[in-house]
């Protein structure tokens, strides 16, 4: 089979991988051990395979790996700083927003992209940002609460600073 090389930055580390020209990003990331990128519907519906490319959430099952050449990718594995969880991860745990956990990486990354652009979103904005992430366990209320709580937590330091 024909192969080509792919240079990308994943979670801050530069990588050079050998891929097939028709490989989808989802397949490459899982092959390279990023199992937090979940294989769900493979049709762009469920959001379990969400990663951030240049800070924007995309479904990795729909994008060819070769298209992200030179790009910056964030997967759930890159979110915690060592043993310190990201406030979003903390909030998901505190609010019981993780049950089986299959949807969680995608949900948290979609939420992170939202908070990076819009630090104080309304509930409606949170629901809109998570509309592409299916969850079969939680009924969505808890993840939405968790994102709002994480946003509120992030807010404190700025208010203190003022």
């Amino acid at each position, binding site marked *: 089979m024909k192969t080509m090389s792919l240079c990308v930055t994943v979670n801050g580390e530069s990588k050079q991988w050998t891929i097939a*020209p028709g490989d989808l990003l989802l397949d490459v990331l899982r092959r390279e051990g990023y199992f937090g990128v979940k294989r769900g519907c493979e049709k762009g519906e469920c959001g379990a395979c969400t990663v951030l490319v240049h800070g924007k959430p995309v479904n990795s099952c729909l994008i060819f790996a070769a298209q992200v050449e030179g790009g910056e990718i964030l997967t759930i594995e890159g979110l915690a700083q060592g043993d310190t969880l990201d406030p979003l991860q903390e909030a998901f745990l505190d609010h019981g927003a993780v049950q089986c956990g299959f949807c969680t990486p995608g949900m948290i990354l979609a939420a992170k992209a939202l908070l990076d652009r819009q630090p104080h979103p309304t509930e409606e904005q949170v629901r809109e940002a998570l509309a592409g992430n299916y969850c079969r366990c939680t009924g969505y209320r808890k993840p939405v609460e968790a994102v709002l709580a994480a946003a509120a937590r992030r807010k404190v330091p700025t208010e203190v600073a003022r």
Partner: protein
Amino acid sequence: MFDRVEAFYRPESVPEVLRLLQRSKGQARMVAGGTDLVVEGDRSVRFLIDLTRAGLTYIRSRDTTCVIGATTTLADLEESTAIHALAGGLLSRAAAACGSVQNRNLATLGGNLAHGSPAADMATPLLALDASVVVADGEGRHKMPLAEYFGRAWQNGASHALLIEVRVPMPPQNGRCGWSFQKFGRTEVDLSLVNAAAGLQLDARGRVKWARLALGAVAAAPFRALPVESLMAGREFDHSLLAEAGEEVMREVQPIADLRASEEFRRELSRVVAGRALEECAARAGCSL
């Protein structure tokens, strides 16, 4: 996985895309966001040509026209201030209705139109705005009205030509104008069962100066409902006019039946969705029923 693919090209200019297309003699597929191509599941492709680096991502607003490059994403359209200013943000609103954030970050305007789906949500607002497209093939560039691209041109192989950009003439700014995009799907993020885009100008006495109405997902291709438009021109905008327009809409649509809905339901829904669009236009033009 697409395991027949032998090469993945990332051309950085339009001439390079065209050269690759010619060289591959019909064995290559162009890919932009991939959100239709990957899902469609034709795994026999041998060559892929990525369009996203070919310099076709731009929005240029000029005096009389707004020009949108084919690889501009639906998320770009949602955010662009130039697009927000055009026809009351009609295109931003339609783009925001296309699936999830994840989908809109990849999905391009060109892909939406070139895929040829009757339910493509960007098609109806662009038809209502009288947009044209520029396509390129080995023989050069051709400009044609969007309606022609969906009709004859598409069937005769425009689908194999590179879509370069979409040109939207600036709609009239003066007077009481309103625009609307309406979509009805099973859920917020599902494909349209029916979509409609409309525009309307009312004169000082509340009469329709002109009306535009485009319908999608209820015929082989999205189309302008011209008989409805001419029926409305010059008439006072009221409930009876809306009812007449709705009857005419039901005569014009040719919906299919599939697992999402029956033909009857789609026909009825066309009337409702078109009515909502026209009513929203009128409300935006300052006339609420």
